[in-house]
């Protein structure tokens, strides 16, 4: 074997953007943006410094939460949140099923498809908080507005995923059922339902989880629930009560996540 001279330098070829000019333009642009963005953040450092003490108090409150002083308010908030979560998930799922079927391209006629897709798009584009603001203005303060908000949000979430599931089903099974001369309802019952049911149950449980988390937020704009209690506690600088509420939220979310993952495994 003859020894030929081998290069002693090697540079890794660029991975993402091959054109050097583009690459530098993008890096430069990102750098300029970062400078401008960080430069435009006005920070009142004195206020932040003063806040450190409050931050410390919050951490202490978190470590030594006070469940008792505000227990009455916490209890009411929790009950509102939990009932809101259950009712809105049930109602949301019930409405999602027809809309989800209507938004599946392989089942619904074009007009129905467009209407259902429009409802989904509307529900997904608006965030819970914005819907809650509008509904509180219409229905007054309290958990009823929260219930409506979460139901509406559930519809957008579930119908979309359900519609996608239905569009992804094994067409061969649907064809086989169609070939038996089954009606549209029989088709849904025999070909679609068995295929999407486990997923639907799983998604509903997942949404139950999300609805509880959201129920803790929409209280901030007056739609009832534990969020309102938390808002009051923080406004009064009662960090030990706030810490208690946040811990309760974390524990419930963890419990819900844990049990729903078990149920989902069991269903599938």
């Amino acid at each position: 074997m003859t020894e030929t001279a081998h290069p002693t330098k090697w540079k890794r070829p660029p991975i993402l953007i091959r054109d050097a000019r583009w690459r530098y333009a993008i890096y430069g642009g990102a750098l300029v943006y970062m400078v401008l963005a960080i430069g435009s953040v006005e920070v009142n450092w004195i206020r932040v410094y003063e806040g450190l003490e409050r931050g410390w108090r919050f951490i202490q409150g978190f470590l030594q939460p006070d469940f008792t002083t505000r227990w009455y308010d916490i209890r009411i908030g929790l009950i509102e949140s939990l009932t809101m979560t259950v009712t809105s998930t049930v109602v949301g799922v019930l409405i999602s099923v027809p809309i989800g079927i209507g938004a599946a391209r392989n089942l619904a006629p074009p007009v129905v498809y467009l209407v259902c897709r429009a409802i989904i798009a509307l529900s997904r584009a608006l965030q819970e908080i914005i819907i809650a603001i509008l509904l509180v203005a219409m229905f007054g303060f309290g958990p009823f507005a929260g219930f409506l908000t979460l139901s509406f949000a559930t519809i957008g979430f579930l119908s979309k995923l359900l519609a996608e599931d239905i569009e992804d089903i094994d067409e061969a099974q649907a064809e086989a059922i169609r070939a038996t001369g089954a009606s549209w309802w029989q088709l849904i019952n025999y070909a679609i339902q068995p295929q999407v049911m486990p997923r639907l149950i799983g998604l509903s449980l997942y949404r139950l989880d999300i609805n509880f988390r959201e129920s803790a937020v929409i209280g901030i704009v007056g739609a009832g629930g534990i969020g309102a209690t938390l808002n009051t506690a923080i406004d009064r600088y009662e960090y030990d009560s706030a810490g208690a509420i946040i811990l309760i939220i974390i524990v419930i979310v963890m419990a819900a996540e844990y049990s729903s993952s078990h149920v989902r495994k069991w269903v599938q």
Partner: protein
Amino acid sequence: MLRIEGLSKTYRTGDKALTDVSFEVPAGQVVGLIGPSGAGKSTLIRCINRLVEPSAGAVHLRDLNVTGLSRSALRQARRRIGMIFQEYALVERLTVMENVLSGRLGYVPFWRSFLRRYPGEDVAKAFQLLERVGLTEHADKRADALSGGQRQRVGIARALEQDPELLLVDEPTASLDPKTSRQIMRLILEICQERNLPAIINIHDGIRAQSFTQRIIGLQAGVVVFDGPPAELDDKVLTRIYGEEDWTAMRRGASEDDEEDAREREERLAGLV
């Protein structure tokens, strides 16, 4: 060169993978490690560079007791032992060159490996090895863009980039088609010869191993049941290792393979001339 004494491995599940394995490998010897799947071949190889921590026994590389080393000393021992894997085990999303250069990781400081600024002689060696395995023009391709045979060539180059004193080879051809398997096996043997490099090659197929190694170690349920020259590996021994099979038919198949191998080599030579 390599001395293994009373090596045992019991997994945490209670499975005994190796029981009191001892042997020595002198410099320049290519050893075929045969046995049915689950006999502990992979575990044995991995105990040598401590990818699997042995439960008892010792591994000596020249004068170095590998089993007693601290973490940083183990790194230095590992870089002296090249390893070639069953499913190539390349980092799929890195380029071929980065994969080869990763053989130097035990030698270079972190900042060099992080910035891909390897010393000139390392890069030159990598290019030389890529030429040796016939992949020069693929240096800048991503590893997952290569075929199986090409990937295993990169795996070989990576192991050699370490300047190893010993080569551990774990079922190098298990996921390749017969023709590519022969090519890869031949490449490994040629390289061992060129460099007078001792190697332990795990191979499931005992009869194939017979045709190219200087020594065979047979493993059955974690115990060495045969250790000797390939010529002594008769039907009786094979049956003890693998259980009852039609060895004559298998030998016929293997020799047909060898004939085809020879034919290929002639064709290749003819093409060169």
